[in-house]
């Protein structure tokens, strides 16, 4: 055909043919140039590939590996908390939640509607579900309902096959089976908050949602928490786990056994019922805390997954302050309970003697002063030696003694009993109380110390403040002739899955030097007569007791009276009533328990606080299981 065309164009054939020749050559030259350009471009491409694959290999290999392998934390299971006899105080309970995997559900709204036939789903639940759904990949389970009740789980479980993509998931949730029991000891866990994130090693908490907030849960957080484990998992681009490459199992937290005797704790709680206040019972031989009560109490369980605002407000704004741990944070004037220690200080410093008497006319006046420091007994106690001063709680004797001791010596002696400084109990937030001294007053009030202030310090009033724990601790110290131990709640730890317990040793404090053993015995004997003696302020609780107790009552003024006023409970608001205090240890000859009781606005120590203490002592010493 082409030939035919050429024949038709005969006249131009020759020139055309030559042109064609030239055109062909031109084309070939261009084709070669094109081929060179192609080769150049491909070589440049190869250079680029070599740059990526050889020069930057390590960089991209790392990126690829990071793409592929993800580190997943494996949170450890939290250790449980028991009392000293193995009564469970803090448990991990499986908690059930309902999850929906959106990509497996065709009609979400219809599914939600049908689920409502089986369980209760609030509008808030649905709102949260949709919010979470937008933020998470559609193959991951989105929670719809938390804390399903047992009957809801049961009803759903049988019908679950009607709901593809709907699942019931279980995880472990902290639960306090005894509720408010010992709540001020055990404390509670809650969701980790912003401030805690700053404090904790976040890697240890990756995968954990809860942390000890208060109580033993907080102070032994590290023991209970355990160590986080990790697994290297291969994931695809959507984050779905394909397989586990390497696994470092978590180390579960240790179980904790508390020194608390749950039975005694319950009895103490019941004994104090009706009062705001605190009871601390220690074993003077080793510092073990046998019971630690602060009343009122609250249920820690709602705190675990976030308490609702209204309930929290109710707890927080209550005038009774249930969240406040009075046993170690409540500071009270020790009142007369301090008298045995003042007496001991007088004996040990040689300022007074076991036989020296002071005449008590019902008041005390500093030489050259008009002010009368009144005795609680209007008519006075008459001639009063030290033992009678303790038994009848004579104020005048101790005004006199305090004046003779001076505030410096008084301070230094009481300081050895951990008054005015934390006892070091293994709970967070213990208050130091206040043991006043001229230096302290100068530093905080920029005022000189007045002699009258020494007198009222002598009867445990004025600036002096102590926590119930400090009172129990100082009483235990007295019971042990100056041998004392840091109060301690940790009894033993136990690895999960093991039967062996690691016993916690006592934590001795430097013993208080004893000048004369007889001085200590004299004070203890006087305290025994407080309960068992004629005229003892707490003689009523000594009746019918099969063991001997040594104790001291106290009444702390909340409301100070003018010189000429008479205390009349009936006329005063309940909140202005005196605090009733009582400290004791028993058996007096071989002490096994030391106790401090404070009943706020309870009136007198002898009428209110002492009988409460007797119930606890009886329970501990007589009803041993």
């Amino acid at each position, binding site marked *: 055909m082409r030939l035919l065309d050429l024949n038709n164009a005969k006249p131009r054939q020759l020139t055309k043919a030559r042109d064609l020749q030239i055109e*062909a050559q031109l*084309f070939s030259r*261009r084709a070669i140039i*094109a*081929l060179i350009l*192609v080769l150049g471009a491909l070589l440049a491409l190869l250079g680029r590939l070599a740059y*990526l694959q050889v020069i930057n290999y390590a960089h991209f290999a790392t990126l*690829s590996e990071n*793409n592929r392998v993800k580190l997943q934390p494996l949170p450890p299971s939290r250790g449980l908390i028991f009392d000293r006899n193995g009564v469970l105080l803090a448990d991990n309970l499986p908690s059930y939640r309902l999850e929906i995997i959106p990509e497996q559900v065709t009609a979400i709204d219809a599914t939600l509607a049908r689920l409502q036939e089986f369980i209760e789903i609030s509008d808030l639940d649905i709102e949260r579900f949709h919010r979470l759904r937008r933020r998470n990949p559609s193959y991951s389970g989105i929670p719809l309902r938390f804390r399903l009740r047992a009957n809801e789980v049961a009803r759903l479980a049988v019908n679950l096959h009607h709901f593809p993509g709907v699942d019931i998931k279980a995880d472990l949730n902290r639960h306090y089976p005894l509720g408010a029991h010992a709540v001020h000891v055990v404390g509670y866990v809650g969701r980790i908050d912003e401030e805690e994130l700053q404090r904790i090693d976040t890697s240890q908490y990756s995968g954990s949602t809860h942390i000890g907030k208060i109580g033993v849960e907080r102070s032994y957080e590290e023991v209970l928490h355990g160590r986080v484990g990790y697994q290297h998992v291969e994931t*695809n681009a959507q984050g779905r786990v394909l397989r586990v490459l390497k696994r470092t199992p978590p180390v579960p937290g240790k179980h904790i056994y508390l020194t608390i005797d749950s039975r005694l704790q319950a009895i103490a709680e019941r004994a104090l019922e009706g009062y705001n206040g605190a009871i601390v019972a220690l074993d003077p031989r080793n510092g073990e805390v046998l019971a630690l009560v602060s009343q009122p109490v609250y249920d820690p369980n709602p705190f675990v997954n976030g308490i609702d605002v209204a309930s929290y407000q109710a707890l927080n704004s209550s005038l009774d302050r249930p969240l406040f741990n009075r046993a170690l944070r409540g500071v009270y004037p020790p009142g007369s309970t301090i008298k045995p220690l003042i007496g001991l200080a007088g004996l040990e410093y040689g300022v007074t003697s076991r036989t020296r008497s002071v005449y008590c006319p019902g008041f005390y006046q500093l030489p050259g002063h008009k002010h009368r420091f009144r005795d609680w007994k209007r008519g006075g106690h008459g001639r009063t030696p030290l033992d009678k001063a303790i038994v009848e709680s004579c104020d005048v004797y101790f005004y006199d003694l305090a004046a003779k001791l001076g505030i410096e010596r008084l301070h230094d002696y009481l300081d050895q009993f951990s008054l005015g400084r934390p006892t070091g109990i293994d709970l967070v937030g213990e208050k130091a109380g206040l043991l006043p001294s001229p230096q302290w007053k100068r530093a905080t009030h920029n005022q000189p110390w007045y002699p009258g202030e020494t007198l009222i310090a002598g009867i445990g009033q004025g600036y002096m403040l102590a926590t119930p724990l400090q009172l129990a601790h100082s009483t235990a110290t007295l019971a042990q002739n100056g041998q004392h131990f840091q109060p301690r709640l940790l009894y033993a730890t136990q690895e999960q899955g093991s039967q062996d317990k690691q016993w916690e040793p006592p934590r001795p404090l430097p013993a208080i030097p004893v000048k004369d053993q007889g001085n200590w015995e004299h004070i203890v004997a006087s305290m025994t007569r407080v309960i068992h003696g004629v005229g003892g302020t707490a003689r009523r609780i000594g009746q019918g007791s099969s063991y001997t107790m040594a104790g001291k009552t106290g009444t702390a003024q909340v409301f100070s009276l003018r010189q000429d006023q008479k205390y009349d409970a009936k006329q005063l608001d309940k909140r202005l009533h005196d605090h009733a205090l009582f400290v004791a240890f028993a058996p007096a000859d071989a002490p096994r328990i030391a106790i401090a009781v404070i009943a706020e606005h309870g009136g007198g120590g002898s009428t209110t606080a002492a009988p409460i203490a007797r119930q606890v002592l009886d329970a501990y010493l007589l009803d041993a299981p």
Partner: protein
Amino acid sequence: MKLNLTADINSLDWKGRNRRRLLRRLNLDIPLLLGLLAIALLGLVILYSAGRQDLDLLLRQGIRLGLGFLVMLVLAQVPPNYLRLWTPWIFLGGVLLLVAVLVAGEIGKGAQRWLDLGVVRFQPSELMKIAVPMMMAWYFTSRPLPPQLGDLVIGALITLIPFLLIVKQPDLGTALLVACSGIFALFLAGLSWKIILGLGGMTVIIAPLFWTLGMHDYQRQRVLTFLDPETDPLGAGYHIIQSKIAIGSGGFYGKGWLNGTQSQLEFLPESATDFIFAVFAEEFGLIGLCLLLTLYFFLIARSLYIATQASDVYTRLLAGSLALIFFVYVFVNTGMVSGLLPVVGLPLPLISYGGTSLITIMAGFGILMSVYSHRRPGFR
């Protein structure tokens, strides 16, 4: 269609001992055929991996390849003269179809590339990849070469009309190929260097002016993201970042067949289609890439050789343009996947999963084979 096969069927030596002879009789070029088969085979091997061992996927691609080779075989039988005679009609028909697609798109309110013919869906822009170089070659057959300025205007029209219609679809990748095919035809026709340099110079001057005066801010931003997708790591940049990781982590020897984590674990998007080159790079490393690029280069070189052996202007220009379009295909895809060029949706020829462009490419090779087997030896 009247095929040479039917004309020569009686003279075929059916008992021929030599397969080579048979292939010759079928107007097939053995080097091209071997090169195509090699690449197609490599393509199936890597597709098996990129498609996560989906045999159905592999089968469908196998069928497409078979169809492609059939189209090639058929077109190899069509003498170039017939093609030349039909060229204006093919071109005109193609342009009309492009208009039809646009109109259908307007009505359907959305981007439209397909023309649904009931049984099959047809993409007219694919046709233009061949129709434009055909038209250019056809035009220059009746013109003295090298082309003059007037020819340039006609050539520009032949290229720009389909180019703009395809850009409007919008299908930038195909439009780019169509534009390239026109430019290559002009270049191969012998457009003088003065004009080439002049046009280049004009572009250098106009482009910045257009940039500063002729564009809105958002348009500029769009162009910038297009040129440097990594500034948008969650959008357009994600593909490129993952693709570079796939290539780079392949290293010199590759991670091995089926062991490419980037592709197997779905970090690499479009791993079976536009980004299959990255899968190849990840699993077979630089060594595998050298082999693949060599094969591609061989196909291009052989095609250009065929063009130089062609016996007239039409076949020469057409064959040369087809060879260079094939190169652009390879280069744009590999350049895009390796982060050298902006992201333009073009498949890797003969390897990417997908049918339409495969058929076009095989049609191009069919034409090349026809050009070679229907040349008149001794003409030169």
